[in-house]
């Protein structure tokens, strides 16, 4: 790819193709569940790993901040709010951007440079319907689910840390967590993560399908997919904070 003009042409064509592909259910339906498993379920360990440590660090940091003036049970409040509103969706998104973005870009990039994408086209199968749509849908559906799990794990690990390493009882922690709880906290996080999933998968597919020039080109596409995926998450995060909060 070179220059903004070519990028615009490619993106414009992409939108047209994406709409047409979505209508072509029979082609992508069979791919959806395998992709949900590959991009979502298989990402659970990474997400849980990130969430456990996020919970621990949040609990420790907030107890350090809340000396004297603020009662210690606010540790629960901060852990809950931070995990649900921000760190759950964003850190999970980042972790998955690495995994999902790289996976998608490398796979589609390899298919592109080995002419498998061309072969699909000659069979009158749209690469958008067969490859892109199921991946984007799967990521859009699975990011929120993995994020929901990560939120739960982050809360639990924060709770566990508070009870075992800080002078806090379960009752106090939960009181803090409930204090300013708002149902919006959860769905705000989940809506965000759905948009992250869509962006990460779309960027991965876009970079992959536009890869050029052998193994090196695939490597470049993969790197770019991950970097752009992470940037997109940060930009979207700010966008949603502006729009929804």
């Amino acid at each position: 790819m070179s220059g903004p003009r070519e990028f615009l042409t490619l993106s414009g064509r992409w939108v047209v193709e994406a709409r047409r592909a979505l209508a072509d259910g029979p082609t992508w339906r069979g791919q959806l569940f395998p992709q949900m498993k590959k991009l979502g379920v298989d990402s659970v360990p990474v997400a849980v790993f990130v969430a456990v440590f996020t919970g621990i660090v949040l609990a420790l940091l907030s107890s350090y901040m809340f000396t004297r003036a603020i009662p210690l049970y606010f540790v629960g409040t901060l852990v809950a709010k931070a995990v649900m509103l921000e760190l759950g969706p964003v850190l999970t998104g980042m972790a998955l951007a690495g995994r999902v973005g790289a996976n998608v870009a490398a796979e589609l990039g390899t298919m592109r440079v080995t002419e498998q994408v061309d072969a699909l086209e000659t069979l009158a199968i749209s690469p958008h319907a067969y490859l892109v749509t199921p991946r984007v849908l799967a990521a859009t559906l699975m990011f929120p689910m993995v994020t929901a799990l990560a939120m739960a794990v982050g809360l639990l690990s924060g709770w566990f840390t508070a009870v075992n390493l800080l002078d806090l009882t379960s009752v106090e922690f939960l009181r803090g967590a409930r204090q300013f709880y708002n149902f919006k906290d959860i769905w705000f996080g989940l809506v965000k993560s759905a948009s992250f999933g869509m962006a990460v998968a779309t960027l991965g597919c876009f970079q992959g399908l536009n890869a050029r020039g052998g193994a090196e080109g695939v490597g470049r596409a993969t790197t770019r997919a991950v970097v752009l995926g992470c940037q997109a998450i940060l930009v979207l995060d700010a966008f949603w904070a502006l729009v929804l909060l």
Partner: protein
Amino acid sequence: MIEFRGVSKRFGEKVVLDGLSLVVPEGQTTVLMGYSGTGKSVCLKHVVGLLEPDAGQVLVDDEVVNELDYEALMQLRGRIGYVFQFAALFDSLTVGENLALGLRRRGLDPGAVTARVTESLDLVELPGTESRYPAELSGGMRKRVGIARAIALKPRYILYDEPTTGLDPVTTAAINDLMIRARRELGVTSLVVTHDVRSAFAVADRIAFLHEGRIRRAGTTAEIRATDDPLLREFIEGALTGEAV
């Protein structure tokens, strides 16, 4: 009938096709020969709309390929089988699935798909390989699976990109025989790109020689055999005496 009318194509500064005109008559086998890197594969890709000409037109059944809308292009691709130079098998699918994908797309029921897959693999002398993955096959076997994938569709047109390169003499003979039978028994119109001069004379009704972006000579097999064009003589004789092409 496939017809190239003054087709020009360049990649960046590199002019590959420069006003190329060629007619591939109905029901015949036309062989396209030429030195490496002269644009033979590029020619084939224009026929199914994988590449678009910068100038000129490619016609299939009197339809201009690069002016077709999406639906019409899909229909056109449904009539054309494409054998890729490097097979371009879907490496995440088994051999059987590779063949079945296009058949299902054309609406065959599962029983008919299985029968057609078996039949096509028999034709390329690879019976019983349905459940193997492309990575487990030799280069020559992959190539033959690629041929099977194209002929399984029973298309009216088949484009072969170097179908016999890298195959042993016995398999080469079998593939030549397959191409001859496709023409004789099914009336398939073929455009065959090959370096293999023996194979070309065995299967061709007409031969065209691509040089510097245009067809330098085209004619019946007998005419090409008797040509006085020094460049073409060198190509043919060099190949027949076993020197490098």
